[in-house]
Every structure is written in structure tokens, then in C-alpha cells.
């Protein structure tokens, strides 16, 4: 858990401080230094097929990958929680319609739904983020709805209602805070998975576009030179793996602290 925190802090700090740490422009092409191996003077992690510095690209790529991983999770947690609160609290026909809609979205393998959305909207990092948000909303909504179904019968909600509290106040002040811990736990796991998922979309050419450094796109570019320069694909892949691993371990730790009874479930963005 401590190691995971340390690793994640290192990844986030390295990405945040990329402009200070990376001395070379990540998109500067140098044809004389194509596919330089690890440990080359001035290029510790070597260069790619266009002679671009791998260290700079990995650090700058981390900024993009982390943003593309975190922002959609925050957006889908926000929307999903709203949908779950409304569906769970009001029940009836509204709940029925929302639940059936979620069922339909769950019927898609996540990556296929994201792929269909981005292929129609056009490949770009923003469209990829939108697609990931749409794909991740149902999981949050279903989680919050199931929690609210239990909470709305509890005595403290009854008490608030009998004291004349309005629905909005009950939902925001009484029900929502009681769902927060599980949403945070799930969101932590989901962030790790979303980073992999976003990288997968970029790997397929649907996310970050060249020459933007992004781990998935870098891995895709490195695939073509795997036999001659293994480091070009391996380094960004290792960065994705270690970030996802540290978030999964952190998720376990956060769960143990915030909600020891929960055992974790299958995620929509497992597909990568």
C-alpha cells in the first residue's frame, strides 16, 4: 500500500513536473538519432523511430494519460451518482426507465461502445474522453442506485422527511454523503482501469493523435519497431502497467479504510 502510494506519487509528480524534468522537447524530431538504445548520452531512455527523446515523451505522455484517465472518471462519477440518486430515491416509472437504459448500455462490451462512439464522432482525445465517460456512467449509476435503495428506508432519512426537509435537501445532505465512501473506492479502481482503457483507445488510433505524446499512442508507434528497438513500445507499456497497478493497490487500501465490507466488483472498463 505504501509502495503503491509512493509509486503513484512518483508518476504524478513526474508528469506534473515534466516541463522542468524533461530537458528535450517531446515532439522534436532528430533523424540522426533514430532508435537510439537505452543509456544513450542525452537520451537516458533512448529515442523512437523519429529520433524523439523517449524520456521526455514518457513524462509528457504521462500528463495526457493521467488527464484522460482521471477526467472521464470524475465526470462519469458525477453524472452516474446523479442518475443513481434519482433512480434509487424516486423509484417507480422513472427508476424503471433509467434502469432499463443502463441495462442496454451494460449489454455492450465497453470498448465496443466507446469505439462506435469515437469512430462516429471522429478520432480525437476529447471524443475519446467523452466516450469513456459515457461507457463508465452505468457502473456508477448502478452502484449508487443500489446504495440509495437501502438508504431511503433508513430511520435518519425518515426523520429528515418528518422534520419537513425537502427532497433535494434529503438527497444532498443525508443520502449523498452516505454513498460517498463507496463511490470513492469504486472511483479509485475505475481510474486505474480507465487509464488502461484510454491507452487502448489511443493504441487503436482513436484517442491522442500524433505527434501528441500519450502512452497508448506511443506503444502503438513502438509496435512497428519491436524487433529492432524493444524499448520504444516497452517503456510506455510499463508506465501504463505501473500506474494501473498502483491505483489498484491503492483502491484495495482505500476500500479497507473506508468500507471494509465491500469486496469490489467487475468494472465496465475491464475490457482493455
Amino acid at each position: 500500500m505504501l509502495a503503491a502510494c509512493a509509486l503513484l506519487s512518483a508518476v504524478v509528480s513526474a508528469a506534473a513536473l515534466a516541463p522542468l524534468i524533461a530537458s528535450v522537447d517531446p515532439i522534436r524530431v532528430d533523424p540522426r538519432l533514430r532508435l537510439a538504445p537505452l543509456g544513450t548520452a542525452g537520451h537516458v531512455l533512448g529515442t523512437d523511430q523519429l529520433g524523439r527523446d523517449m524520456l521526455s515523451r514518457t513524462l509528457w505522455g504521462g500528463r495526457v494519460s493521467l488527464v484522460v484517465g482521471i477526467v472521464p472518471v470524475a465526470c462519469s462519477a458525477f453524472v452516474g451518482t446523479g442518475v443513481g440518486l434519482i433512480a434509487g430515491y424516486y423509484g417507480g416509472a422513472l427508476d424503471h426507465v433509467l434502469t432499463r437504459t443502463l441495462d442496454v448500455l451494460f449489454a455492450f462490451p465497453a470498448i465496443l461502445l466507446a469505439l462506435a462512439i469515437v469512430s462516429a464522432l471522429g478520432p480525437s482525445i476529447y471524443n475519446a474522453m467523452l466516450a469513456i465517460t459515457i461507457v463508465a456512467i452505468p457502473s456508477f449509476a448502478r452502484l449508487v442506485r443500489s446504495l440509495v435503495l437501502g438508504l431511503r428506508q433508513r430511520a435518519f432519512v425518515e426523520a429528515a422527511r418528518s422534520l419537513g426537509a425537502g427532497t433535494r435537501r434529503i438527497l444532498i445532505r443525508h443520502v449523498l454523503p452516505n454513498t460517498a465512501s463507496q463511490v470513492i473506492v469504486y472511483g479509485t479502481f475505475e481510474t486505474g482501469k480507465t487509464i488502461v482503457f484510454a491507452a487502448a483507445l489511443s493504441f487503436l488510433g482513436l484517442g491522442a493523435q500524433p505527434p501528441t505524446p500519450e502512452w497508448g499512442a506511443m506503444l502503438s508507434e513502438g509496435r512497428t519497431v519491436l524487433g529492432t528497438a524493444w524499448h520504444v513500445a516497452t517503456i510506455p507499456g510499463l508506465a501504463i502497467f505501473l500506474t494501473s497497478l498502483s491505483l489498484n493497490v491503492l483502491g484495495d487500501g482505500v476500500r479497507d479504510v473506508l468500507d471494509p465490507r465491500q469486496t469490489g466488483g467487475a468494472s465496465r472498463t475491464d475490457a482493455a
Partner: protein
Amino acid sequence: MLSFVVGRVLATVPVLLGVSVVVFLTMKLIPGDAAQVLAGPQATREQVELIRESLGLNRPLYVQYTTWLGNAVRGNLGRSIELEAPVSSMVLDRLKNTLVLAIGSAVFAITIGVPIGILSATRRASLLDRASVVFALFGNSMPSFWLGLVLILVLSLHLRLFPSQGMYSLRGPTGFGDLMWHLTLPALTLSGVPAAALARVTRSSLLETLHEDYIRTARAKGIAETRVVVRHALGNALLPVVTLVGIQAGYLLGGSILVETVFSWPGLGLQLYDAIGARDLPLVQGGVLLVAGLFVCINLAVDMLYSQLDPRIRYTA
């Protein structure tokens, strides 16, 4: 029993209809004039109008949907813009190869994940148990497309044990053995996440079952531990695993696009990848509809199987 089956089948109809609506609407997300986008920037006015007419884009939305759905139900998913061939025959042709990959991966996932979970649960807190927890964590965190590249790098390019591309050899025998040889790396890659999930669920489910009263009774009767685990505990412990296999079917079908791209496996995933690159949206739409429909049907089959395996939920729709 019959009413249960009929009820479950009928319950999937609205889901399938919803899936069709979502797939249809994704086509409507195309910004600007869809016919112009699909025809490409070089297209003449006549070509754009031809696409508009052939896809019915000049008609009201609900008419477009009902026509498209009617055609899809009859097996007509339109024509590929790039290859100018019927989408249905193209996707069905490739689906066979994807199913070969998915089944191979499922076999790998079950034969790796379930035994690891069993060994881990029966030797709790041992070194093996810790190793299995690490395996599950790694499997869950590792991007399949990276795992595939690492396997190609080590087992194919360096050790030359397996081929890195394709489904059959271009030269030499192309029988079942050749297929298995080509299948090993992609199937192993795709099985990483499900194997980790199966190991985790098998472990926790078996641990829970081993604490049940009837297991204590079996042990008190002097039955050997192996027999207690295999004959008494495993049957009940594997019930959640069956559900997970259903969930993972979606992963295998969806994840195949990444693995097929890495290994140039000529399945539906690679076809979708190529279609996206060519902006051949009828082909993308057809492929996504087919896979999503298949996923719904697999989950229906798993539900049925589950009700057969667990008498407590039988006949309750």
C-alpha cells in the same frame, strides 16, 4: 421451467431493441452532413447523393431506424462503403475467427485461473497464496495490448517458439496443429484479465464455502481434505465462477479487437479496426451490433445454465 425460459428470453427482447437503438444512434453522432463525411472529401456531388439515398439519410429518423432494424433482422446490415460488399457476410465470415480466439482464451483462462484460485484457497496464507494474489493483481492491471507485445518480443522474436502474426502459416501445412500454434500467443494474451478475475473469485468463493457448516460436518466425519474440497466444496464454490465466465465473455469479445490488432488475427476485431481507419461506418455499425447481440445471448445462456446449476433460483424469472 418452460415459463422461466420463455420469461428470460422475452426479457432480453427489450434489451436487444435498446442495443439496436444505441447502435443506430451512434451513426447519427457524425458531425455535419453524414453522407458527405461517409463519402469522403474527394467524393463528387453525385456520390454523396447516392450514399444519402442508399442509407436513407433524407428520410425521418424513425423511418430510417425501422427500415434499418427491419433489414438487420432479415440479415441485411447494409453495404461496406470501402469494400462495397454486404456487411452481414463480411462480419459473419470474420466472427468465426474471433470465436476461435475467444474460445481458446476462455480455455486458457479457466485452466489457469480456476486451479490457481483453488490452490490459493486451500493453502491460505502460504507463499503460493500470496503469489496468486500478486498474479491476480498483475493480471488485472496489465494492458492486454502490452502483454501481447511483450509475449511477441520474448516468445516469438527472441526464442522463436511461436509465430507473431496471423492465423495460419503462409507456407507449409495449415491444419489444426498450425492453427493451435498460431492461436497460443493471442489466446494467452487475451486470457490474462479473465484468468486473474477467475483466480480471485474462485479463491474468495472457495474460502467462503470452506467455512460452511456442512464442510465442517464432512471433515468431522473423517473425510479426506482433498475429497472435502473436490466433492463437497467445489460444486457450490464454482457457482459465482459461472456468472463471471458470462461477464468475461463480453471482455473476450470486446478485448479481441486489441489482441487481434496486435497479432494480425483475421477476426472481427481486426476488421473493425480496419473499418474505423477507413471510416467505413456501416461495417463498424454491423460489427458492433453483431457482437453486442451475441454478448446479450451469451449472458442469457449463462443465466439459464446458472438456474440449472443452482436449484435455489430455478423457475424464478
